[in-house]
């Protein structure tokens, strides 16, 4: 024990602000699995060639053919046109899927363990499943 007394100074926050911080941390914790979840963008990402453009390309082939020059079939070069909600375009998703499938399974499992499962459960490495006793507990990720 000191002979004289001890004088200390502490920074303080308003209670409403502290509540807001706690809510923010809780919300961030809830969102961490969501932000760690890869949500594919299915459907077209690049607009398909329009009928007019296809007609123009056919005209190019007709011109080449008329002059004995080689022609080209664009349908065998471009991917299958996808129709979603009346919008026609090409999707990069098949290539993304293939790229992901080329990642080793263990790495994929590790990456995906931070996010949500297909059934909406948080992954095994999500903050909710970290073995730490927290003063503030998140809501658990439910709706």
């Amino acid at each position: 024990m000191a002979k004289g007394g001890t004088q200390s100074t502490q920074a303080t926050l308003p209670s409403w602000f502290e509540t807001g911080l706690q809510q923010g941390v809780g919300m961030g914790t809830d969102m961490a699995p969501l932000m760690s979840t890869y949500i594919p963008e299915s459907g077209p990402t690049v607009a398909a060639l329009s009928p007019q453009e296809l007609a123009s390309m056919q005209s190019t082939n007709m011109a080449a053919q008329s002059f004995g020059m080689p022609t080209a079939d664009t349908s065998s070069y471009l991917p299958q046109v996808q129709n979603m909600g009346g919008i026609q375009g090409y999707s990069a998703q098949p290539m993304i899927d293939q790229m992901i499938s080329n990642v080793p399974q263990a790495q994929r499992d590790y990456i995906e363990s931070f996010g949500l499962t297909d059934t909406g459960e948080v992954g095994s490495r999500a903050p909710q499943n970290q073995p730490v006793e927290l003063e503030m507990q998140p809501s658990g990720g439910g709706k």
Partner: protein
Amino acid sequence: MGAGANPQMTSNPYAQASGAQQGALAGTAAGMTYQPSQVQATSYQAADPTQFMANYQNPYESQVVQQTLADIGQAQDIALNQMGAQAEAANAFGGSRHGVAEAQTRVGYGKQAANTVGQLRQQGFNTALGAAQNQAAAQNAASQFGAQAGMTAQQLNQMAGLQGAQQRLGAASQLGNLGRQSFGYGQQIQQQQAQEGAMQRQIQQQLIDQARGGFQRYTGAPQQGLQTLISTLTGVPNVTGQSQSFQPGLFNYLQLGANMFG
């Protein structure tokens, strides 16, 4: 051919251009090797009048001559008879004078006969020669006309050939221009199609981008909420305060006791 196209348009403009170009090339190549017809000098053999003379000999000339000779002979006989009668009347028939006179008469008729026959033959020859010369002249004129006409025909044919070659070259050039025109039509239409098609595709791409943006806003909506909360908290100025506390020590307690009992 597309529906509603011009029924006269049997092929696409590029096929037309290609066909026209081939035709123009072939026509121009043919024009480059065109050889005009050669004009050959025409000649003719001048007609020989003598070969025609036989045709103009009087076939009755010999009969005329013979008849003339007969007539002269008859006249001579008559003269001799009269002379004989006169001599007999003068009792001089058979005399020397009668013989001389008779001989002179015969000589005179002989000369007359020779002259007459000669004139007849000369006349016949001259007539035949004149006719033969006329025929030869007519034949020469005809040959000359024919030769001239032949030359003229060759020249006209040569000119016609040249004109035809030039016309074909002009047609080939026009065909090439028309082919170029058709090609231009095709290109213009094609470029218009490409331009309009690109515009349509851009609209489609904008729709896709809008859709992707909407989807990303959907999946990022919670994060947006968190950002809003963080912005709210960090936007509040000077929220921190200070609190002071004092923990008394032994000296403070002793001083407090002294004060109480002092």
